[in-house]
């Protein structure tokens, strides 16, 4: 058996170990390489900056724990920014298994920034129906969510004063891990009810959202952990995403090296077979 062939047949658990170490070591011993800001993340940040105080900011947390590592840091960075700008935050989720996480992260950031439930923010919770919820909120927010997460009637909550439907939202961001997510918020929400929409998403679906970004259907896009790291650097509060960037660098380097080795062996085997 040729060397290349033998090398290709090594136990894959060795590769597992390599990738595990590439992740673990930079997390334990961070280097802190600088992060460049991409225009699509910056436009989300700039739009948030341009909003006047007490504007209504809707954050739809459309992911479940499976995408937590990517989207949770995005949500935290966005909430910190919104609270710092003193926006009125309305949070919700279209993904049932994301409810607990959304509640937790909202409470945590609000506590950290000294914000009060009902006065500065409200968590509407989850409602089934996906796109139907979006349409219904566009028509009348109070029929879509008769009560907030805590069971309080939404009518009369101070933070929702003057808010009847999605038309009264100044900026909405959907942090989506799939469907319903950013696309649904455009098709069933922004398209008709005319609020500005931004998107945050996992790396897997980010490339698919670029046509919407190009055509201005969403005004910005935060993609994956990298996007979260960019946003964390923009607001100057580094968190989990920035901390993970070194590990991300190391694993990408590892994958690139592995792909290169794979192809070197592949081509050497092929030329041997021909020769």
């Amino acid at each position, binding site marked *: 058996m040729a060397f290349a062939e033998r090398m290709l047949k090594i136990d*894959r658990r060795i*590769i*597992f170990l390599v990738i595990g170490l590439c992740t673990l070591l930079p997390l334990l011993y961070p280097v802190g390489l600088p992060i460049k800001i991409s225009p699509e993340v910056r436009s989300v940040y700039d739009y948030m900056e341009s909003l006047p105080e007490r504007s209504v900011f809707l954050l739809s947390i459309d992911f479940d724990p*499976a995408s937590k590592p990517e989207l949770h840091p995005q949500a935290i960075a966005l909430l910190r920014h919104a609270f710092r700008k003193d926006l009125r935050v309305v949070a919700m989720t279209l993904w049932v298994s994301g409810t*607990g996480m959304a509640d937790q992260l909202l409470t945590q950031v609000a506590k950290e920034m000294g914000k009060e439930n009902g006065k500065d923010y409200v968590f509407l919770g989850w409602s089934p129906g996906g796109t139907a919820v979006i349409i219904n909120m566009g*028509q009348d927010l109070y029929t879509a969510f008769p009560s907030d997460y*805590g069971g309080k009637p939404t009518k009369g909550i101070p933070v929702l004063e003057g808010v009847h439907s999605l038309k009264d939202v100044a900026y909405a961001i959907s942090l989506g891990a799939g469907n319903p997510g950013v696309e649904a918020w455009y098709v069933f929400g922004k398209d008709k009810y005319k609020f500005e929409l931004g998107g945050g998403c996992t790396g897997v679906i980010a490339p698919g959202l670029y046509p919407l970004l190009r055509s201005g259907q969403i005004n910005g896009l935060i993609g994956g952990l*990298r996007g979260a790291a960019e946003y964390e650097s923009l607001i100057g509060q580094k968190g989990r995403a920035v901390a993970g960037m070194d590990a991300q660098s*190391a694993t990408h*380097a590892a994958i690139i090296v592995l792909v290169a080795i794979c192809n070197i062996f592949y081509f050497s085997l092929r030329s041997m077979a021909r020769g």
Partner: protein
Amino acid sequence: MIFLRRQLPLLITMITGLLFAGQYYVPHPASELLLTSATKWLQIIGGFALVLGVTSLFHQHAAKIRRKEAGWGYSLVLYAGMLVTIAVGIWASGKESIDGAMTLFGWIYSFMMVPLQGTMFAILAFYIASAAYRSFRARSREAAVLLIAAVIVMMGRVPLGEYLVPLSGDVSQWILNVLNASVRRAILIGVSLGAIALSFKIIFGVERSYLGGSKE
């Protein structure tokens, strides 16, 4: 009977389909009211649909336990996990936290569901690495193009890549914003045409597989 079983459902589909396709073009408050109530209804029906999805799982594992098939013990674990979650969930009236204090339901969510679901997908990272070494080969010219683009994007999206090859950031940005966006746009248009054709076929009863039991 055939009318009730076959024609009437098709008629319902056609009427609701046409009604709500037409609704889009009518800005009058009456039409908006129709949309509001229908979506409100959909929200409620959506809840029942969830139950439907869950029921089939219920049946499957119940059968496994009844017949004592191989691995029925795991099905028992599944049941236990589900029943305990339901019990504590109803006890906490469906809230993970009440006034900031974590309930038992919230505990199960944070310390069982979140790590389990997160890890299920994290193991894929290892498989990508192993596949990168063993099977991501440039078997054809097309696959070679794919791999080169992938390597550029992987470099351009992490600080190390941008540090080593400063150009990689801009190039990957261009690939995503221009090349990728154009392809995705073409795919989006193609898929949308397919979706519209399917919707029309459903509304006019040409496509009926959603009714189940296509043989009847």
